[in-house]
């Protein structure tokens, strides 16, 4: 087997040194009735060519986003990733290294984590950030737990702007950790959500997403004020981190914790994962943060260096008293984020955001002209919601047959909610061309 270097001869020699007659002897602690003699019922080993064929056959049954006019967002966005990013993250030294527990020989990883933390803090407008979470949704769950720790309260309020699957993740965590949760109904664009009325003395936090699930940009300032007045924290969720190149960051609108999905920068769609959760907060809450943190320090010669720090919060030290049970971060995805963000820089990040916004505005203007279509949003970044004259799920299905992947029918994630049945959530990024927009418009006219 190509990945296994030991030969029969090696094995024999090694058993000799060990003093065992056979490998079976080394498994003698396994209870006899649990020892399997034969092979499990699965195919035998395969060469590279065969594996490529089998997986290639599966891959060929999917429609890659790049192969059609593509307009799905809702928490995962198709952006162009510069070739240097994927090249660099595949370097052996990054790809095949472990968690930097031995800082002397992992300064490469540690320094980019430090750079990542700085970038995340800057773009969210916050003071400090951690070295990443699994993704945006799980980061959102951790943020709620952190708010409970900070405020020593046990109830959170989730705005109807929050992505339903994020809400489900928070709900699940909250249920099992025996916390309380109030989940507001879907906040449609153009309809004011009366969240202030739900902010009381007993809540630890209120969670608001911007751009919201329906693409609408939300003003966090009044919510932050109201929350702070009641001793609660404002958790802002940013599902499309590129938006902060064009939009006022939550940190400037009073958020106490900002959670973001970093996939848009440097990372592909990958059918939902791996992604990279961004997590930023105020310095005063630093020691309550979950996840890994990288900090600057000096070595024995006085040279600048980096280490994982504040690990007394973590499970491998604190065990059942840890701030969370998290062990890994999203290392390689944060590296991709950091490299892409480095290439973009201040101007590139902002300009890419403008390009995205322009693409979405142009698309909205085009589609608004299709008879029966109504754009619901007042303010949006690269995603908006339209009301169609019939169920959106049917329309999306019909669009597929016309070669256009037109967006997410809100009903897929909010089944049974009558007022979203006809809503289609549409995203547009720099990958969409004028031809894509024209194809969408033409196809939509046909299927409506």
């Amino acid at each position, binding site marked *: 087997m190509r990945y296994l270097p*030991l030969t029969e001869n*090696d094995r024999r020699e090694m058993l000799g040194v060990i003093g065992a007659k056979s490998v079976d002897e080394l498994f003698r*602690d396994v209870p006899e009735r649990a*020892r*399997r003699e034969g092979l499990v*019922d*699965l195919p035998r*080993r395969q060469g590279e060519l065969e594996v490529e064929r089998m*997986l290639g056959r599966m*891959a060929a*049954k999917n429609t890659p986003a*790049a192969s059609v006019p593509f307009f799905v967002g809702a928490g995962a966005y198709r952006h162009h990733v*510069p070739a240097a990013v*994927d090249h660099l993250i595949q*370097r*052996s030294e990054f*790809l095949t290294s*472990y968690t930097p527990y031995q*800082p*002397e020989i*992992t300064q*490469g990883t540690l320094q*980019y984590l430090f750079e990542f933390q700085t970038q995340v803090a*800057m773009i969210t407008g916050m003071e400090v950030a951690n070295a990443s979470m*699994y*993704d945006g949704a799980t980061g959102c769950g951790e943020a709620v737990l952190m708010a409970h720790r900070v405020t020593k309260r046990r109830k959170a309020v989730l705005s109807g702007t929050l992505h339903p699957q994020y809400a*489900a*993740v928070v709900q699940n965590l909250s249920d*099992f950790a025996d916390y309380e949760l109030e989940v507001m109904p879907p906040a449609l664009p153009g309809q004011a959500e009366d969240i202030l009325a739900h902010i009381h003395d007993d809540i630890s936090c209120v969670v608001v997403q911007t751009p919201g699930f329906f693409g609408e*940009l939300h*003003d966090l300032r009044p919510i932050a004020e109201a929350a702070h007045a009641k001793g609660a924290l404002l958790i802002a969720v940013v599902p499309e981190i590129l938006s902060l190149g064009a939009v*006022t960051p939550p940190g400037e609108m009073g958020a106490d914790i900002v959670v973001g999905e970093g996939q848009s920068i440097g990372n592909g769609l*990958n*059918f*939902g*994962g*791996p992604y990279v959760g961004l997590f930023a907060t105020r310095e005063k809450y630093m020691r309550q943060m979950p996840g*890994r*943190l*990288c900090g*600057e320090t000096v*070595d*024995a*010669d006085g*040279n600048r260096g980096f280490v994982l720090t504040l690990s*007394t919060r973590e499970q491998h030290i*604190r065990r*059942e008293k840890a701030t*969370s*049970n*998290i062990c*890994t971060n999203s290392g390689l995805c944060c590296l991709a984020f950091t490299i892409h963000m*480095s290439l973009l*820089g201040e101007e590139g990040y902002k300009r*890419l955001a403008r*390009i995205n916004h*322009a693409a979405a505005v142009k698309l909205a203007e085009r589609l608004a002209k299709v008879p029966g279509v109504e754009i619901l949003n*007042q*303010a949006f970044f690269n995603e908006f919601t339209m009301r169609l004259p019939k169920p959106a799920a049917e329309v999306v299905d019909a669009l*597929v047959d016309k070669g256009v992947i037109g967006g997410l029918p809100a009903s897929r994630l909010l089944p049974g909610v009558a007022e979203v049945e006809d809503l289609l959530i549409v995203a547009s990024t720099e990958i969409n061309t004028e031809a894509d927009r024209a194809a969408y418009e033409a196809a939509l006219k046909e299927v409506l």
Partner: protein
Amino acid sequence: LEEPILFELDNPGACGVDLDEPEEFAPRLGNFARAGRIGLPSVSEPEVVRHFVRLSSKNYSIDAGLYPLGSCTMKHNPRLNEKMARLPGLGDVHPLQPVKTVQGALELMHELSHWLKELTGMPAVALSPKAGAHGELCGMMAIRAALIARGEDETRSRVLVPESAHGTNPATAALLGYKVDAIPATKEGRVDLEAFKAKLGPDVAAIMLTNPNTCGLFERDIIDIADAVHEAGAYFYCDGANFNAIVGRVRPGDLGVDAMHINLHKTFSTPHGGGGPGAGPVVFSEALAPFAPLPYVVHDKDGFRLVETEGDAKADGTNPFGRMVAFHGQMGMFVRALAYMMSHGSDGLRQVAEDAVLNANYVLASLKEDFSAPFEGPCMHEALFDDRFLKGTGVETLDFAKAMIDEGYHPMTMYFPLVVHGAMLIEPTETESKQSVDLFIATMKDLARAAKSNDKDRFTGAPYMAPRRRLDETGAARKPVLRWAPPAPKQAAE
């Protein structure tokens, strides 16, 4: 050569991308246009590439040498897996695009599930957890959901966890509100069966046990433990971090396990990536299967479909406990793991376990005279030593580990498990050749002899040859500096 921090490379006017300003349009950002400078540095592509290439050279990696981190399983990462994960049909699909346009992706998840179920002998699997610890959480949630369904959630509040467990185990149990009760170990490094049985009772929800355990030993009494747990009305959660030691030879389902997560990187070679991303699918017994979380894939006459809402699940006759992730889990890792499984096949995977165990025992046998092994008998995939052999030398486990760096090796796992003093946990993995392991053994023996012959400075000052000497971790924690800040007075950074 010192490499500046990225922000110190800032040169306004430079840029690593070329983007055209969009044609004029009427913005619809409302009152939310961002104002002011963010502070991101401006750097050209050649400089960015060089920055990260140079940073990379400060890292140790499995591609550069043996990486004997016990319990972390640093094995070869085949590049075929990377290539497969980048097929546009797998890498460039959106989690929420119409199900009929992702039939191959769902088929792949279904196929991976099949392999995991066959290999573990368990009837159900939840693919979605994003890492091992997330998988533990998933497994324990399923247990609690089952207890809720049985109406015993209130009464069963205690979880038994051996002293030697990974820190994630008690952390997970605590997150779910359970009281963690430690089970002592025998002097043979295994669960003390009597002490364990004594702790069982009607208030016990589950036991969380790693097997092979963190001492690298197989829990001989595992079936008795499982039986006792089940008899007490509790569930058996198995930490599957060490599944690589037994894959293809022992099926957890045959041991009585109710839930077990599998770290795809440890057993199935997805890359560690400097700390992630991981992936932690969880297999379930019949008893827990109905509670497996959303989403999951179903294959029927119309093809593959995703059960992703409670409504779908109801129609499907299951009772998912909830949802762990926004989408469907770590697809990129699924592709890699399946490529690895298919490459090995049933025969190769069995060989994986055998070679991993053989390499570890070879290390154990070769080092046991110069080092001190706390437990008798063969080990599984990792060899555990304690620090008795260093007694009186003035060298501690940490010093010994740092001295390994100067010899060109990454240190082994140290001070874990907590049950032995100054632990050194060595896992060579199945992808090291005998030639490589022999060289490692020779180096370790040489170091042990040096430590015993009063060559103390070689250890306490180590490493000498690494990109950095020992770092001040205490200082870092006392006054944390978690981000770069521009130098206070206005002057160019260097």
